[in-house]
């Protein structure tokens, strides 16, 4: 069959075709002079959202479509979505001193194509996502196997290192307290000196508690507790507590009473370090959260059982926070207050290790009363040795930029890093971390992954994609292999998880600081 001879078409059919064409194609013809002044309009401009009476917003949009194109050559631009969302085929037809812009409706065709295209694209994207997921699953499985082997090895190393670190921390602090006591007695007549010594005592007490807590927390929960039961001089312990906390309480105008009742002739045997840790944490909290009134500590040794009741008239703990108060890094019960939020979680863990019980009663605004009950421990045949030579970290003068938006954690990290000899600079968001790191070139950037706004991983990625060569350690609350992989892929050299394992943290920071700006890295440090 040959082509259609239009001259032979009956008039009625020709009219029908014309109507069909107008209905479906909605042709709009606009005639312009070379300066884009509209000369003539044929068709329904409103159908395409064009207001021919408003050149600024109507015709200007059309004119923009031909930017950079010669107006003396025919142009054919299909499927253009116009301002009103309607799709049209656009044609520019030069005509002596004029040119015409012809718009033909492409809405139906566009919609049809979109459905097909959408299905095709979604299928491809889903297929790509599926392949990626399968790859990730395989990777996770092999990573888990590797981690298992690493964990077993790390556990043994960790226990040994913690034992030595713990010893190293305690020795100088014990010395500090001893000399403080001597200095305090001789500074009676000098108010300024007394005030200074109080400040030193307050901070040393805090540091002692913090160091003990962090070291305790550094131990894995699955590790067998390294208890060292020995005969305990409860009278001396009571005197120490009184010497340590009375000045702090009195400085705040609080009454402070420590009592001891010895109703059992048997010798009390406990892990003294752990016992002190429990009482220190409870008393430290009591002093910190009490503004007026009194604090009492009643210690009783009776029927092979030691009980200690620590009572305060402080701010109290709301019922809503009763469950979470023993969760690490949780300060819900004492919102807005200072401290790392580790104390009660440590107390709970240590009491459980010593096969004891811990309970409390509290009323908001009236105070809290914690009760610890510990059964007599068995003396071990051989006390564990803890006099191995401690590692020394030569990090004096190295710089670290810490990016964390939680001031408590940031300060805690700063304190730990300062102890290691680092010069510490703090920032609270990822954007500042990127700018500071690029400008200041610290030896190590320690950045929290879960920063509000731009994430820590995004900041690390931005730094690496700009050629940043410094060492980067990321810290995250997500302890999954996937999260670790993501951080390392973004460009971190080391990945640590919260709660902080101090031994590992020290090791990683030492390693990062030592490897310098061009050293190797990109290792997984957390199980």
């Amino acid at each position, binding site marked *: 069959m040959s082509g259609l001879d239009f001259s032979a078409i009956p008039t009625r059919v020709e009219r029908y075709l014309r109507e069909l064409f107008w209905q479906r194609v909605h042709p709009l013809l606009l005639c312009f002079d070379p300066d884009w002044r509209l000369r003539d309009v044929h068709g329904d401009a409103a159908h395409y959202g064009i207001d021919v009476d408003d050149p600024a917003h109507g015709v200007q949009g059309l004119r*923009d479509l031909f930017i950079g194109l010669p107006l003396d050559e025919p142009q054919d631009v299909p499927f*253009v979505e116009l301002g009103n969302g309607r799709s049209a085929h656009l044609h520019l037809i030069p005509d002596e001193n004029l040119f015409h812009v012809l718009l033909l409706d492409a809405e139906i065709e566009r919609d049809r194509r979109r459905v097909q*295209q*959408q299905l095709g694209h979604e299928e491809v994207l889903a297929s790509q996502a599926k392949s990626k997921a399968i790859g990730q699953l395989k990777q996770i499985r092999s990573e888990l196997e590797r981690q298992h082997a690493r964990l077993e090895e790390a556990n043994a190393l960790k226990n040994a290192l913690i034992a030595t670190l713990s010893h190293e921390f305690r020795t100088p602090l014990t010395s500090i307290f001893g000399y403080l006591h001597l200095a305090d007695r001789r500074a009676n007549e000098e108010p300024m000196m007394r005030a200074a010594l109080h400040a030193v005592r307050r901070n040393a007490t805090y540091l002692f508690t913090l160091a003990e807590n962090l070291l305790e927390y550094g131990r894995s929960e699955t590790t067998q507790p390294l208890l060292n039961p020995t005969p305990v001089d409860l009278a001396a312990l009571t005197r120490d507590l009184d010497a340590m906390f009375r000045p702090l309480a009195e400085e705040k105008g609080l009454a402070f009473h420590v009592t001891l009742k010895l109703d059992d002739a048997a010798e009390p045997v406990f892990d003294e370090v752990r016992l002190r840790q429990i009482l220190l944490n409870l008393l430290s909290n009591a002093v910190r959260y009490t503004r007026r009134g009194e604090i009492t500590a009643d210690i009783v040794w009776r029927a092979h059982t030691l009980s200690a009741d620590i009572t305060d008239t402080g701010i109290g703990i709301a019922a809503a926070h009763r469950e979470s108060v023993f969760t690490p890094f949780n300060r819900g019960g004492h919102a807005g207050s200072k401290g790392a939020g580790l104390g009660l979680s440590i107390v709970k863990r240590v009491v459980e290790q010593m096969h004891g019980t811990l309970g409390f009663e509290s009323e908001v605004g009236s105070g809290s009363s914690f009760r610890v009950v510990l059964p007599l421990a068995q003396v071990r045949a051989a006390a564990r040795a803890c006099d191995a030579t401690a590692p020394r970290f030569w990090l004096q003068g190295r710089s670290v930029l810490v990016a964390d938006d939680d001031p408590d954690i940031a300060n805690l990290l700063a304190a730990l890093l300062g102890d290691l000899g680092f010069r510490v600079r703090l920032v609270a968001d990822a954007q500042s971390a990127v700018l500071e790191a690029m400008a200041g070139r610290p030896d190590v950037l320690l950045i929290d992954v879960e920063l509000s706004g731009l994430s820590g991983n995004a900041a690390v990625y931005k730094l690496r*994609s700009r050629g940043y060569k410094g060492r980067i350690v990321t810290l995250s609350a997500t302890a999954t292999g996937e999260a670790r992989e993501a951080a390392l892929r973004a460009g971190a050299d080391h990945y640590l998880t919260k709660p902080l394992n101090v031994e590992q943290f020290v090791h990683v920071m030492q390693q990062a600081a030592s490897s310098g700006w061009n050293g190797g890295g990109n290792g997984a440090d957390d199980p």
Partner: protein
Amino acid sequence: MNAVARKLCMLGDFGVGKTSLVARFVRSTFSEKYLTTVGVKVDSKEVALPGRTPCKLVIWDIAGRSNLDALNMTYLRGASALLLVADGTRERSLHAALNLLMQSRTLLPDAVVVLAVNKLDLVEQWEVAPASLAELRRTLPVHETSARSGEGVEAAFADIAARLTA
């Protein structure tokens, strides 16, 4: 001061977020729903540059694909700038963007080109390594963007405007 109008084409594989970047830049909006683009959608926005004539970017959001066909070439004609878009979570989309750049060079040898690696909010899922972008930066201005959060979007378009009016 009258703005200088310049045609900018968005170029990249499908699903990389070209339409979302334009929506974020022009209308400050974002939709989670993926809706494929058929043909082209044209938007415009004026960019003010300190001490320079403002630049009106007429943005052609072209349907995504990994290769340029005759239809895409039609859309590219007259463009002064290209915003190449890749999806950081799909490395092959970066290859596609670079491939599109090579193909478009025959038609637009002098066009300003900037690369936007999109979906920074999903950086944990990125396949594109930072080292790859560090290498690319030697020859191409690169911006990490997130149409969802808006991170880097304004900067990418402003970079183009600045280069067009330099």
